């Protein structure tokens, strides 16, 4: 929570309408993201009740588990969801790939910033969607990624993007991945081959979601809260319906009023995965009870007729995409069952499907409205670069599964070295992401202006052709500009800062002096101005230009070297046993 967000919340509370806390979109939005709205049964360990899933608002698939406690039905559900997700993954992978560029050198290209806009707006390249030439500030990070990907020569142009309603939806993905990735496709508890693959991909998605800069798996409430502040608390923002009501209320009522209405579970069913307890008690429990009775009756009839359990080979999952002739099919396939036995079963299925659909559909529509709202914002300058990293990760994991014939499932727990490495990477990416956001967006930068870590001011003097001797005695061009600002700058002399208008150029504060209640900041510039003795016009700020400078930079801060996993010291448990999936993993009871 920054002071800008707090202030925007106060404004929203006063006016009854949400306030923007971003002017550009800081997340990637795929052309056809996969929206997934899962529902689970209360009290059970992540037992799916239903899922609405699809890449087109008009054409969702609704999968319903009529008895979520039934283990066979859960796997049948996992298989259907797996077919769906794997199909999506394959479509992404078949959309083409690009060669991975060799690692970029950290040196900025000569004259790289010559084309930078003169007198640019604060915030620089807003809305262009063109990646900012990163220059020397982020090249190290890129080089790391590029080196890691060098072994793979291709990077897919399209990567999967999965959107769930809230943080609990992300947890559902993680836990469902955990409960399916170890399953065995042979032996006593064999499951369809797609189930463990679903588990691997869900786990991949969930692991990407831990990374704040990734857009591979996103919780919609969090993506929205990144861009708008409401007049309610963050806790209440976790309700997707209420959050959307604040941001985009229906005509004629304020965001506040709309949000209060949206809190009523009868008006806006919870976005899940947990369902409304009243719905459970009044609607779902009786419907499932009727289904259980109907199935028991059918099994009894089958038993009396001496035929095997009809649901054994064909688990009874409800899939909305299938033509609604299940009744006819059953009547012809089950000659032993009278219509008085089939009728209640069909009615019970319909009852459950209708009830679940009424709970899930409002959230489905909200998700797509939210997608459109976010899509209306122009993408931030660094979004394509971050998404490239998502694509690279997808490409390498896809290649691993393909080359290793399915590979091994991700381990239950990271080893000590792997965990430390992962944590360091996450910290580094978080710092880079926060710096990126401030760089891309004047509204995000505003928070740092209040805390004195960034400032916006007008250039009052510039010495473009200043040359000084460096430590080797060579003359180098080091222009000096003076910027006058009203912001409460709290940076010591010697601090390195950078302006979004000229990302390839860095500046060092050489003096700060108060003038009439404002501050005069002197900056010595280097880089981003070509090799000429006198930098070309426009490459150095001109008097009268309004500029922002921030000290929050994505400098590649490298953590201490970590030992190889096989050299893990005894203080951290010693070298971890190499992970081998055991039969126990597959046998794990799931009921």
């Amino acid at each position: 929570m920054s002071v800008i967000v707090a202030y925007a919340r106060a404004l929203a509370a006063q006016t009854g309408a949400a306030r923007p806390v971003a002017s550009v979109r800081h997340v990637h939005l795929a052309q056809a993201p996969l929206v997934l709205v899962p529902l689970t049964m209360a009290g059970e360990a992540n037992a799916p009740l239903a899922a609405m899933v699809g890449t087109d608002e008009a054409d969702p698939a609704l999968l319903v588990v009529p008895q979520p406690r039934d283990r066979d039905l859960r796997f049948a559900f996992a298989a259907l969801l797996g077919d769906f997700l794997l199909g999506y993954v394959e479509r992404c992978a078949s959309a083409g790939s690009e060669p991975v560029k060799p690692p970029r050198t950290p040196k900025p290209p000569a004259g790289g910033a010559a084309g930078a806009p003169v007198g640019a707006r604060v915030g620089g390249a807003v809305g262009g969607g063109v990646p900012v030439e990163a220059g020397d500030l982020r090249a190290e990070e890129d080089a790391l990624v590029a080196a890691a990907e060098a072994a793979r020569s291709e990077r897919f142009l399209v990567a999967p993007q999965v959107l769930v309603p809230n943080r609990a939806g992300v947890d559902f993905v993680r836990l469902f991945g955990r409960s399916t990735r170890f399953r065995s496709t042979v032996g006593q508890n064999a499951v369809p081959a797609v189930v463990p693959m679903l588990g691997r991909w869900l786990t991949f998605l969930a692991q990407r979601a831990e990374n704040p800069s990734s857009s591979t798996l996103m919780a919609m409430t969090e993506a929205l809260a990144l861009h708008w502040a409401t007049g309610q608390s963050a806790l209440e923002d976790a309700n997707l319906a209420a959050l959307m009501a604040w941001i985009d209320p229906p005509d004629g009522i304020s965001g506040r009023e709309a949000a209060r209405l949206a809190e009523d579970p009868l008006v806006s069913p919870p976005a899940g995965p947990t369902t409304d307890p009243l719905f459970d008690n009044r609607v779902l429990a009786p419907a499932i009870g009727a289904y259980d009775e109907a199935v028991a009756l059918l099994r009894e009839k089958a038993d009396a007729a001496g035929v095997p359990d009809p649901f054994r080979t064909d688990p009874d999952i409800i899939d909305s995409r299938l033509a609604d002739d299940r009744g006819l099919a059953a009547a012809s396939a089950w000659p032993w069952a009278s219509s008085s036995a089939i009728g209640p079963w069909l009615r019970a299925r319909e009852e459950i499907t209708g009830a679940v659909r009424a709970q899930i559909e409002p959230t489905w529509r909200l998700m797509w409205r939210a997608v459109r709202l976010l899509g209306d914002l122009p993408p931030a300058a660094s979004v394509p670069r971050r998404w490239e990293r998502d694509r690279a990760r997808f490409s390498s994991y896809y290649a691993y599964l393909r080359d290793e014939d399915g590979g091994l499932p991700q381990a239950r727990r990271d080893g000590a070295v792997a965990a430390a490495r992962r944590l360091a990477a996450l910290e580094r990416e978080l710092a880079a992401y926060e710096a990126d956001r401030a760089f891309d967006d004047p509204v995000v930068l505003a928070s740092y202006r209040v805390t004195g870590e960034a400032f916006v001011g007008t250039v009052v003097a510039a010495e473009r052709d200043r040359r000084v001797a460096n430590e080797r005695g060579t003359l180098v061009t080091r222009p000096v500009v003076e910027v006058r600002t009203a912001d409460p700058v709290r940076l010591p002399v010697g601090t390195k800062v950078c302006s979004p208008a000229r990302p390839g150029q860095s500046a060092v504060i050489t003096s700060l002096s108060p003038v009439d209640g404002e501050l005069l900041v002197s900056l010595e510039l280097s880089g981003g101005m070509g090799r000429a003795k006198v930098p070309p016009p426009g490459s150095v700020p001109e008097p009268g230009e309004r500029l922002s400078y921030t000290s929050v930079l994505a400098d590649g801060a490298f953590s201490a070297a970590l030992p190889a996993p096989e050299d893990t010291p005894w203080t951290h448990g010693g070298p971890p046993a190499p992970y081998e999936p055991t039969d126990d993993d597959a046998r794990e009871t799931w009921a």
Partner: protein
Amino acid sequence: MRHEGKTEARLARIRGSEPPRRHNARTIAALTSNPGCARRAVLDAAGVDKERLADRVGFPAAFGQSRFAIVRGNAFERQVKADGCVELLRLLRDLLGLDLGDATYTDLGADDSGEGLDARHRVAKARLVDGPAGSDGANGELFDHPLLRLEVAGQEVYLEPDLVAFQHGGAYHVVEIKSFPVIDGQADGEKVAAAAVQAAVYVLALRRLLGRDDAVSHEVVLVCPKDFSNVPIAVRLDVRRQLIVLEHQLARLTRIDTLLDALPDDLAFDLGQAGPGGGGSPMMAADALTAALGRVSARYVPGCLSACELAFYCRGEAAGHTAALGIGVREELGGVGTVAEALGLAHGTAVPAADQAEAAAMLRTTARVYAEAVGDAAGAPGAA
């Protein structure tokens, strides 16, 4: 003693014609999460049914529990306790190394003979104080649903832990059975935290009952389903921190009579109905109840929404306060109490008090840079 009687009479008057509502470990745990709330303290001490009260004043709470969750919770507890807790004893022995010998099992909750809570508590107390010493030595003992008692805000509250285990030669361990899963050694942090506070309430009650702190271990045993199965797994949970917080908060809870002294004498929240059998008109109309609520001050924070039945009413009342947007928001806004005041200071329409000069300067900068930044980005959708 005379004093206590007076307080009880006063609380009975506040409650009116209805019987008092029973406290439980969960409500005590919740009470300690917002100890500064006088409204909650008074209503809870008087045993007013807050859920019905919220309903009557037009702010019904959505605090239902799903039947599926209850069924699952009960089924799991039954499974763990089946056959005199053989499964549980194995867990305690194997996983925790508790030496229980051939522990005996005593059900102190089975007797629903209608003797009343006090009688049940006396039985439990006698068994818990004498039990271990009375048994012939080598074996531990498991007590199912003993009824304990704890003083909260001047009132005696009855509590019923799932199980209490006595280890021979050692101490009592509180055993808490929960149906949320422990997956790869990890469980939902919020649920574990809630279970830990709840267990700490039992530990405290048991310590007070036995009169000795060292008689009850600060390590409680949490029994949960393992991974995605029904197989129980037991883990030790150190609740020392929760105990410190709990004891501190319980002591800090303003003694209820001090609170009551500051309240008008005719204060009442009578949810009952007039006439014989209670079939008649309500004793108090909705607006009378609302007026009564207004006479006891509350301290609303967003966290109340997940803990207190009256939270929606209090939220409506707290509209316009910065704390209602979150404690973090109030702090970021320099600790200024209301939205109107914070924005007034930010926009220069309010005069800061002497101690607000710094906050006001910060708020003015915030308003200026926000307007500048949003203005620079004008044209962006949603910038209305």
